[in-house]
């Protein structure tokens, strides 16, 4: 007994000491503290748990182990920069700062350093134009497709016409919240609805006056572009003025479990757009339970598994690891670099078979990334909260946004960026 233990130990020591493949570095720029910490922690848990699962179950990706080290930012741009500088030298493959402000700041830096950045459903929308933004990806959805999917949903439930309706947008008064305005204004002109803008200053605990205005003006629908503590307050305030919850629709960052639970039964019927499925009814969660949670390796306390934001963090890890596989196949090596990772992301194709192999059949839409389109098709669905069962359910299929409206906006914004920074076309 003792000998076998000793032998096992010796083998382990030899394995540890022998020169193995370098790890695949995935710095996890996360925030578990501050006003956005409750939401940031769930995303970080999902990301980290899936990476741990890959290590424990498959021994990494394509034989190379994954190293996902967290770096805490507290949602501050300065600390994000520090985290970036601290990790980029270790062979970081891809960044994902989970903050629109930080993404704006990192776009020129990562491009100059040749490291890709995946801003999944946040960041600068026009990075979908890969012709200008060579290293930045924002598949499978972005703010403008999200806004358009919401408007499409509203069109659906109003028999195809929003003529004369009023829509209020309560948004975090920052780059993040301001992103959808341009699209919503254009869509408003097209479909004939009035848009009221209600900026809410960060972090968003104080929004009495905005809700007073909503109470006075009685808009038909309220859209919420919030994050962290702002969502909980907004949903509570909406409940306080008895605003009908089914007319209150959030972006995907305003539709997580801990946004709606504090308002209790009053939040029943609240809707949000999403680009991936909800719940823990997928085979991959059994593996996470077995290899990660039960083994005591979860990043958090294990209680977040299956929540909306946990799923999103996991989905991000899934897409990144699939891109690694693409890169490994393209370049014939398991030990890929950031430049190869960029190629992997750019040639990523997600199909039903792939999702089924991962154990996530029907979790997210199929899409294809290309040099010109770093954003995917931007499909989105609407989820609704049921306060009684404490669960979200998808009430629509994944639908396409109105790309006729969004594509010109993306082209215009990225052209402005290209002109400002003298960027030549990347794809030809």
């Amino acid at each position: 007994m003792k000998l076998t233990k000793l032998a096992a130990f010796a083998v382990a020591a030899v394995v540890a000491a022998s020169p193995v493949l370098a790890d695949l570095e995935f710095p996890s720029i996360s925030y578990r503290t501050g006003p956005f910490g409750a939401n940031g922690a769930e995303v970080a848990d999902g990301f980290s748990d899936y990476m741990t699962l890959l290590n424990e179950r498959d021994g990494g990706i394509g034989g190379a182990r994954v190293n996902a080290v967290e770096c805490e930012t507290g949602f501050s741009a300065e600390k994000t920069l520090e985290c970036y500088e601290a990790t980029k030298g270790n062979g970081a493959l891809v960044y994902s700062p989970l903050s629109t402000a930080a993404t704006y700041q990192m776009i020129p830096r990562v491009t100059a350093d040749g490291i890709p950045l995946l801003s999944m459903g946040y960041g600068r929308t026009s990075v979908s134009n890969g012709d200008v933004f060579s290293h930045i990806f924002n598949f499978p959805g972005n703010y403008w497709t999200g806004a358009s999917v919401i408007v499409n949903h509203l069109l659906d439930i109003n028999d195809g016409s929003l003529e004369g309706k009023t829509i209020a947008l309560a948004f975090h008064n920052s780059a993040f919240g301001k992103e959808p305005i341009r699209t919503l204004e254009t869509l408003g002109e097209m479909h004939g609805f009035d848009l009221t803008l209600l900026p809410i200053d960060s972090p968003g605990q104080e929004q009495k006056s905005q809700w007073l205005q909503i109470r006075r003006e009685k808009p038909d629908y309220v859209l919420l572009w919030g994050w962290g503590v702002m969502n909980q307050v907004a949903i509570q305030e909406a409940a306080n003025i008895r605003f009908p919850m089914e007319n209150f629709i959030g972006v995907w960052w305003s539709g997580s479990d801990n946004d709606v639970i504090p308002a209790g039964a009053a939040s029943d019927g609240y809707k949000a757009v999403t680009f991936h499925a909800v719940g823990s009814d997928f085979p991959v969660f059994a593996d996470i339970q077995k290899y990660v949670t039960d083994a005591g390796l979860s990043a958090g306390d294990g209680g977040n598994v299956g929540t909306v934001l946990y799923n999103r963090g996991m989905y991000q890890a899934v897409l990144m690891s699939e891109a690694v596989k693409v890169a490994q196949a393209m370049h014939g090596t398991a030990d890929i670099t950031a430049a190869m990772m960029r190629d992997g992301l750019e040639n990523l194709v997600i199909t039903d078979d792939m999702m089924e192999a991962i154990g996530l059949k029907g979790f997210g839409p199929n899409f294809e990334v290309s040099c010109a389109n770093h954003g995917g098709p931007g499909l989105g669905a609407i989820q609704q909260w049921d306060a009684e069962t404490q669960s979200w359910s998808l009430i629509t299929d994944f639908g396409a946004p109105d790309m006729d409206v969004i594509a010109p906006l993306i082209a215009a914004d990225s052209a402005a960026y290209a002109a400002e920074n003298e960027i030549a076309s990347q794809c030809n």
Partner: protein
Amino acid sequence: MLYREAGDFKTSYGKDSQTFPLKFDRWAYWLLLVVAFGVVPFFINDYWLNAVLLPFLIYAIAALGLNILSGYAGQISLGSGGFMAVGAYSCYKLMTSFPDVSIFFHVIISGLITAMVGLAFGLPSMRIKGFYLAVATLAAQFFLVWLFNKVPWFFNYSASGQISAPERTVLGYAVTGPLATAPAKYLFCLVFVLLLAWMARNLTRGSFGRKWMAIRDMDIAAEIIGVNPLSAKLSAFGISSFYIGISGALIFAVFLGAVDVNDTFSIQKSFLILFIVIIGGLGSILGSFIGAAFLVLMPVLLKNIMVGQLGWPSDLAAHFEFIIVGALIIVTLIIEPHGMAQVWRLTKQKLRLWPFPH
């Protein structure tokens, strides 16, 4: 033994009133400059630049500015974050409107614009003092941040309301934008720190500084002996805002490269700079540097020790960081209410006597 006046004869008035009366200090000062200008640029990398040196240098400038206002002239201000935003947005407008002008001049002009804004918000100091003035400057903080969020002209009508710094050069070397090298950015900020610290030192021990200190110690008495409170207080506000504006312009253009006004120039920033000044030492040039090092670099050091060396989870380390920095602030203020600069002053006195204290 080494640290003493003996044998160091002052034979002119100039020598008698020099900043560093001790030969040892003068040597240390020149050595520091040689290292900072001649050695560091050859070894600096992006991590040291962006995590350590740039924040230290830039916050030191802001602290010098607030120290002139609060430490020397005794006017409490909570508007530093707002004034930094003025510097940053002026710099952005100048950079994008006059792309061919050297960024050096843009930064200086941003400082001057901030000085004008500071003068305007300094006017209430004629009538109100102390806490009431602090609240009035708080209004500046909120008003300015609101303004830069509200008026699209300031951010050139960009969709997100963010401003990002395009590449601009000094003497052909890029100091802003993603392609600027670490030594270029570092030297650019270092030159500003040196010039501004030298100017602050000479202002504070000249007639300006004497007037400020007279107003700080007792404004009625100062007025009776012939100090004009209007010019003294307004000059303190103007010069202080000039410094803070320059630091804001540097934070935006050189350090972060893109700025969201709510995130970077919030009330937190005003508090941070006030704490730097209080911890470092009110009314001390050196204190501004020590305070900046303490409050800006200590968290980075603690993080590296706890996460990098001890391998703690990053959120636990972040919480501990708050606790440790907070505890250190309280302990420092109890042990030495006059700040770290006073500790250095006492050390110097002891050193002069060492090793024969009696």
